[in-house]
C-alpha cells in the first residue's frame, strides 16, 4: 500500500512551485486579466522549455514519456498559480486526443510541436448555451470540409490546432476532426468572459480542411473518454486553486483583528476554514485515486474521474467564495487577488461540463460498476 507520490514526484512539485512563484505571481495573472493579451506568451514559452507540455508524450514523439502522476503534480501547481496559459487546452485536451486516436502520421505531424509548446491545441464541442450532446451538434464535415460554429472554444483565438466534434449520421452521432486553425476560412472572434485571464473565442468554420481523428461515428464516446481523462487533470488544478484560496483566507484571518482579537479566533471563521479544509482534503484524496486510475487506465476511470471532478468543483467554488467572504470588504475590491480564484473556480467548473453533468456521470459509472 503506497498512496503517496514518490520522492521524485515531490521534488518535481517543489521545483514547479518554486518556478511558478518566480514566474507566475498574481501580478502575472493580473496582467492578462486586465490587459489585451490572451495569455502570457513568455510564461508559456518557459513552461514549454521546462518540458511540462511534453510530460506524458512518448519520447518517440518528442515528449518526456513520464507518467500522469508527474502531470497531475504540474496541474496542481498550475492551478494553485492560476497560470494564464493554454495548458489545459493544449495538454489535457488536444495532445491527449491526438495521443489516443491520432494515426501515426497525425501523431508525427502534431505531437512533437505540441510537446515543444510551438503549437497550441484545443477542443471544440459546445455550440452555444446549454448541455451539448451528440444530437445537439450542428457542425458537419462533408468531403473533408468542415462547416459550422463552435462557441465558446477555450483558447480558440490563440490555438493553432483544434479538435472539433461534428455531427455524424452513424454510430454514436458524432465524429472528431482535426483542424489546422491557420486556414483563412476560419473566423475567430474572441468573446468576453467571466475570467479574462483565460481566453475564449467563437470559431466559425466555412468549409475548413479537416482530417478525421479516430473512427467516424465514434466521436461522442471519444469526447466522453477524453473528458474523463481531462477531468482528473482539471480536478488537480482545482485542488491546487482550492488550497491556495484556503491559505489566502487563513493568512488574512490570522492578521486581521476585530474587537481586539484575530478574526481567525472566531468560530464563524474557524469553522468556515475548517469546512474549506475538509472539502479540499476530500477533493485531494479523490484526486489521488483519479491520478492512479488515469495512470493505470483502470476500468473504473469514469467513476474515479467523475468523483475527482465533482469534488474539485465543489471544493474550489466553496473555497473561492468563502475566501472573499473571509476578507470582508477588501476581498471584494479589484485590487485584492481574491476574485481571481472566484473567476477561475467558475471557469474550471464550466470547462468540460458542469457539476450537474458530472454528478449524473458519477452515478452512471456507479451503476455500471455495480452491474459489472
Amino acid at each position, binding site marked *: 500500500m503506497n498512496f503517496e507520490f514518490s520522492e521524485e514526484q515531490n521534488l518535481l512539485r517543489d521545483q514547479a512551485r518554486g518556478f511558478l512563484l518566480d514566474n507566475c505571481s498574481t501580478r502575472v495573472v493580473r496582467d492578462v486579466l486586465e490587459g489585451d493579451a490572451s495569455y502570457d506568451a513568455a510564461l508559456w514559452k518557459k513552461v514549454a522549455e521546462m518540458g511540462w507540455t511534453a510530460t506524458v508524450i512518448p519520447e518517440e514523439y518528442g515528449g518526456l514519456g513520464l507518467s500522469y502522476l508527474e502531470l497531475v503534480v504540474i496541474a496542481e501547481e498550475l492551478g494553485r498559480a492560476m497560470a494564464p496559459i493554454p495548458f489545459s487546452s493544449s495538454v489535457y485536451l488536444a495532445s491527449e486526443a491526438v495521443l489516443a486516436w491520432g494515426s501515426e502520421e497525425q501523431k508525427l505531424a502534431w505531437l512533437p510541436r505540441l510537446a515543444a509548446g510551438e503549437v497550441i491545441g484545443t477542443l471544440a*464541442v*459546445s455550440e*452555444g*448555451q*446549454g*448541455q*451539448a*450532446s451528440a*444530437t*445537439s451538434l450542428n457542425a458537419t464535415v462533408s468531403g473533408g470540409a468542415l462547416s459550422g460554429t463552435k*462557441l*465558446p472554444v*477555450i483558447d480558440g483565438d490563440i490555438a493553432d490546432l483544434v479538435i472539433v466534434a461534428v455531427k455524424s449520421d452513424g454510430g454514436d452521432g458524432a465524429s472528431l476532426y482535426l483542424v489546422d486553425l491557420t486556414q483563412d476560412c476560419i473566423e475567430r472572434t474572441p*468573446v*468576453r*468572459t*467571466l*475570467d479574462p485571464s483565460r481566453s*475564449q473565442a467563437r470559431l466559425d468554420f466555412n468549409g475548413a480542411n479537416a482530417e478525421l481523428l479516430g473512427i467516424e461515428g465514434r466521436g461522442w464516446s471519444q469526447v466522453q473518454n477524453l473528458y474523463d481523462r481531462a477531468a482528473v487533470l482539471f480536478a488537480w488544478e482545482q485542488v491546487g486553486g482550492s488550497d491556495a484560496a484556503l491559505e489566502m483566507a487563513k493568512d488574512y484571518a490570522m*492578521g*486581521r*483583528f*476585530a*474587537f*481586539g*482579537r*484575530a*478574526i481567525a479566533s*472566531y468560530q*464563524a*471563521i474557524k469553522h468556515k476554514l475548517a469546512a474549506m479544509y475538509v472539502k479540499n482534503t476530500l477533493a485531494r484524496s479523490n484526486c489521488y485515486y483519479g491520478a492512479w486510475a488515469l495512470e493505470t487506465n483502470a476500468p473504473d476511470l469514469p467513476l474515479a474521474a467523475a468523483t475527482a471532478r465533482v469534488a474539485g468543483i465543489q471544493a474550489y*467554488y466553496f473555497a473561492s*467564495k468563502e475566501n*472573499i*467572504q473571509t476578507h*470582508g*470588504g*477588501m*476581498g*471584494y*475590491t*479589484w*485590487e485584492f487577488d*481574491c*476574485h481571481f480564484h*472566484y*473567476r477561475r473556480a*467558475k*471557469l474550471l*467548473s*464550466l*470547462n*468540460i*461540463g*458542469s*457539476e*450537474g*453533468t458530472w*454528478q*449524473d456521470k458519477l452515478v452512471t459509472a456507479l451503476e455500471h460498476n455495480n452491474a459489472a
Partner: protein
Amino acid sequence: MDFNDTPQEAAFRAEAQAFLKDYYPTAEDFKGLNPIEQAQLWAKRKFDNGWSTLRWPKDYGGRDASPIEQVIFNQEEGKVSDLGDPFQIGQGMAGPTLMAWCKNKDYLERYLPKLSSGEEIWCQLFSEPAGGSDLAAMRTKAERDGDDWIINGQKIWTSGAHYSDFGILVTRSDPTVPKHKGLTYFFLDMKTPGIEIKPIKQISGTSNFNEVYFTDVRIPDSQRLGDVGQGWSVALTTLMNERAAIGGGGVSVGVKSVMQLAQKVNIDDKPAIEDKQVRAKLADWYVQEAGLKFTSYRTLTALSRGSTPGPENSIGKLVGAPKTQDMASFAMDLMEESGAIWDDELSELAGLFQGTFLAIPGLRIAGGTDEIMANIIAERVLGLPQEPRMDKGIPFNEVPTSAKG
C-alpha cells in the same frame, strides 16, 4: 388576515398613484440628464408637491406620514420609476440624525429642505480600512484647535462621496478611553480643503464606493452633533435609520429568471426544467424567496400597526445574498461551457447571471457580513449572550490590532 389595503391605505395609495401619474417625468424630461440629475429632477418634483421624505415633518419638506404610507408610496413609485436613489443616505440617515441631535435650528432650516428636495446630496463617512465588522473601531483622528477640529485619517466604502455636497463623519477624539467612549460626530462640507476622494474598483469592475482621505481637514465645532465623546450614541441613531430591507429590489436573479433559463436549455436532450435536480433546487429557492416576501408582509403589517422593524430584518440579507450567489452560479452551470461568457448579446438576459455572480459577494459583506447578521439574530433576536470581548473597558490605543498584533 387580509391582503388588501385598509380603506385609509387604499385612499392614500390612490392619491399616490394620481400624483405619480401626473408628475413622474417623461423620457423627454429626462433627456440629456445623467442619472444623478435625473434623480434630482424627480426629487424636486416630489418636494414641490409634498411627496418627498414623507415621514419628515412638514416644516422641513416632509409630509408627517406614517411608516405604512411610506411603504405604499415606495411600492407605487417602484412601479413607475427605476431611477437610482442617491438621496438614500442623506434623506434616510443623515436627516433623521440631524433632527435628533442638531440643536441649532438655523442649521436644520438650512440643510433639511435642500436634502429633501434633492438639491444637496449627503454621504456617510463611518467605515475605515481597519474597522470592518468592528464598526466602532474608528481611528480617524479629530483634534481640537480653537473653535475648530482638525481631522486626519481615512474612511472607506463611502458611496457617492464624489458627487456628495455634505457628509456625516465619526472620528476618534480620544484614543485613551475605551473604544465606544472616545468618538465624536460631525457633519461637514465635502468641498472642505484637505479631502481627497478615490474611487474603489470592485471585483465586478464597477466603482460604487470610495476611499476618502482627510489631511488636516478643518471642521467648525458648531458642526459637531452631540457632545465630545458621544459620537457612538449619535452614530447609533444614524445606523438605526438604515432602511429596513423591505421588499428589496435591485438584483433580479430569482426563481423566475432561473426557471426561464431552465425552460430554454437542455439536459439530456430534454428541457432542463424537467430535470428533478433542477426542480428541487428551484423549489428550495422558491421556499426562501417566498418566505422572505411573506416575512416582509408580516413586517409591513407590524409597521401599519405602528411598530418599528427590529433586528429580525437581518434575515433578508442573510438568506437572500448567499441564495442569489448560488442561483447565479447554478444558472451558469445550466448554460454549461457558455456559462462563462459575459456579453450583452451572447449571454442570457444580457449577462444578468454573470454580472450578479460577480456583484453578489459584495452583498454578502456590505452592511454587515453574513456572520455579523447571524450574530445579530443570535444576540438581538434570540437573546443569546455576546462572546467574550477582549476590547471591553480597555483604552482604544491598547486594544490588540492587526497593526500591533
